[in-house]
């Protein structure tokens, strides 16, 4: 990793915060108060750190999902729909096979999450491969459809009669996975941080190995970098589109493991706090590298944790400010050229840059973007 790879995300964050501070000022609150609440509450033990890591878990999954897709030249905006479908599938397996022992049921539920997410993401992949229709619009449409579909299933088929809340019946006891509080001293079990967090870190490592150490990853990256050259090299572009989307969806689907098996032990409608969209910001900020994704996820988790006291303790600013900061990060990261200009003193540097396996940035035109 070159200095540039670390410096630019940092500058993007700083700029985003600067603009965010201006927004807060315009509204009439104190940026200092807002930001200290935003950042400060994340550092307490056990609640601050515990909740921050818990919030980071789904963001790591969706961040990885978007990052893998971007490496393949695809923009997966559908993580939101994919994780809803996956979470429901997880709950369904947990309810339907409730009698099975843990050793069988937990992996089965996890598999359901991954497969459901992968399948939901494969749909836009196939649409693009077969018809050339752009994945951005299709994934967004499927987000709406997923939410409606899962809402229908919950409301009409899987709710406990008489329960006013839109949630499913609980999953079997043997499907639940352990909270980290049961193994880490000092961490109470009421904090929902669970094994899925470790799974997320494992997933990050696996994505790293996949992309840069395997032939499959080589093909994904080549397709994303230059589909014509990949085709020349014997790679089937269409198959890559579908597989890349499937992997991406599978990663997004793992959010279901954290949510259903580790936290609520049932499917709870509307549980996602924009994890899918935040995943985009996380991936871009982390420059599509798994390590960067984990760090960026932690940053956004800190912000999300801080959003609660901001909502509660400031006069006028609501926790939407977090979303605004995310959007600003995306814009500043996308405008990367802005920093290059400052860095090189007014002229873009020559050609040699970046290490081998350079990550595709938010810069001009990912290869398979297509015409929309």
């Amino acid at each position: 990793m070159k200095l540039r790879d670390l410096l630019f995300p940092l500058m993007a964050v700083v700029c985003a915060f600067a603009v965010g501070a201006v927004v807060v000022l315009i509204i009439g609150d104190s940026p200092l108060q807002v930001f200290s609440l935003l950042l400060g509450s994340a550092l307490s033990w056990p609640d601050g750190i515990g909740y921050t890591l818990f919030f980071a878990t789904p963001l790591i999954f969706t961040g990885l999902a978007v990052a893998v897709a971007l490496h393949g030249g695809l923009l997966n905006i559908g993580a939101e729909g994919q994780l809803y479908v996956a979470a429901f599938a997880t709950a369904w397996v947990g309810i339907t096979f409730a009698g099975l022992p843990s050793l069988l049921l937990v992996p089965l539920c996890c598999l359901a999450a991954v497969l459901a997410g992968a399948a939901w993401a494969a749909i836009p992949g196939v649409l693009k491969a077969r018809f050339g229709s752009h994945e951005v619009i299709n994934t967004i449409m499927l987000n709406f459809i997923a939410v409606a579909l899962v809402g229908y299933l919950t409301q009409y088929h899987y709710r406990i009669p008489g329960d006013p809340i839109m949630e499913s019946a609980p999953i079997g006891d043997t499907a639940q996975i352990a909270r980290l509080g049961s193994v880490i001293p000092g961490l109470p079990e009421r904090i929902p941080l669970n094994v899925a967090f470790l799974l997320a870190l494992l997933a990050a490592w696996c994505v790293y190995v996949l992309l840069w150490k395997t032939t499959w990853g080589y093909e994904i990256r080549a397709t994303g970098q230059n589909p014509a050259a990949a085709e020349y090299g014997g790679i089937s572009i269409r198959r890559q589109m579908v597989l890349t989307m499937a992997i991406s969806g599978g990663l997004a689907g793992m959010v279901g493991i954290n949510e259903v098996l580790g936290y609520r032990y049932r499917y709870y409608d509307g549980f996602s706090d924009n994890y899918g969209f935040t995943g985009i910001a996380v991936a871009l900020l982390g420059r599509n590298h798994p390590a960067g994704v984990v760090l960026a996820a932690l940053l956004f988790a800190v912000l999300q944790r801080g959003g609660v006291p901001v909502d509660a303790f400031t006069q006028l600013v609501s926790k939407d400010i977090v979303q605004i900061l995310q959007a600003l990060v995306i814009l500043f990261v996308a405008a990367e050229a802005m920093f290059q200009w400052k860095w090189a003193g007014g002229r873009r540097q020559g050609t040699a840059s970046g290490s081998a396996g350079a990550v595709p940035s938010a810069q001009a035109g990912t290869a398979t973007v297509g015409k929309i």
Partner: protein
Amino acid sequence: MRDIFTISLVFSTIRLATPLVWAAIGGLYSERSGVINIALEGLMLAGAFTAAAVTFYAHSPWVGLGAAGLAGALVASVLAIVCIRFKANEVVAGTGINILFLGLPGVLSGALFLSSGSTPQVPQEQLLPTLAQLVPVAPQWRIFTNVSAISMLALFIVGCTWYVLYRTPFGLRLRSVGENPEAADAAGIRVERIRYAGVVLSGVLAGIGGAYLSIGQSSLFTRNMTAGRGFIALAALIFGKWRPVQTMLACLLFGFADAVTIQMQGVVKMPSGDDVPVQFIQMIPYLVTIVVLAGFIGQSRAPGALGVPYDKEA
């Protein structure tokens, strides 16, 4: 069936298609100049919120409308700078704008109105008027003027756009910049300036489309009230082959699908006799969009340089 296909269906179609037409025609200016505009959704939200908030204070929908156009122009300028000046990936930058407007209206309405995302209701007489309210007409014709002034204006805008695009020098230059910016540059045309114009125009029009949602069709702004219309407008643009009249027809088609599904609610029943679950009806516009896009994108020829930032020294 007879209950569904009534005259009110025609008006419903027009009503539902109107914001799509504004947004899609706006998108046309941007995309014909070569800049992908994924941010139509965010631009509409910006316009919707601004219109509702400003109308509440100014007590006039026209002031609100103007403000909405201005807000759209402002937001689009940001998109333009990020994409044109800094050569960002247009889809990513557009997504950023969209996410921004998931949250910004909430923050602003919290500050202005102490609410969690909605603006206060605007009284009926301060909403965008229908044609009937503007032009007094004999009673037997009144039913035909029960359509919003903004819908009529949309028709006018489509005609204008056709003329501008194919009969004025600006339109010729816009099209050339979108097809082959190098050629346009070699002919002495300021490529970046034209692209800025295209993007900012798309902001103005999409903003007005959003304003129609909040102070024309409704009477307030609610969180995420566009519900994907910006993307459907983009799909209509593609379906309409980036041409003004065809795009308008595509928007009418989508509006029609939307109107039919609304009419179906409560009328069409499941085989068991129960009402169709509302979620299935909600899904229909999105399914239609997917099907349309899959079926027709192959036949659509996008502007040649769409999505490729112009970098002379590359």
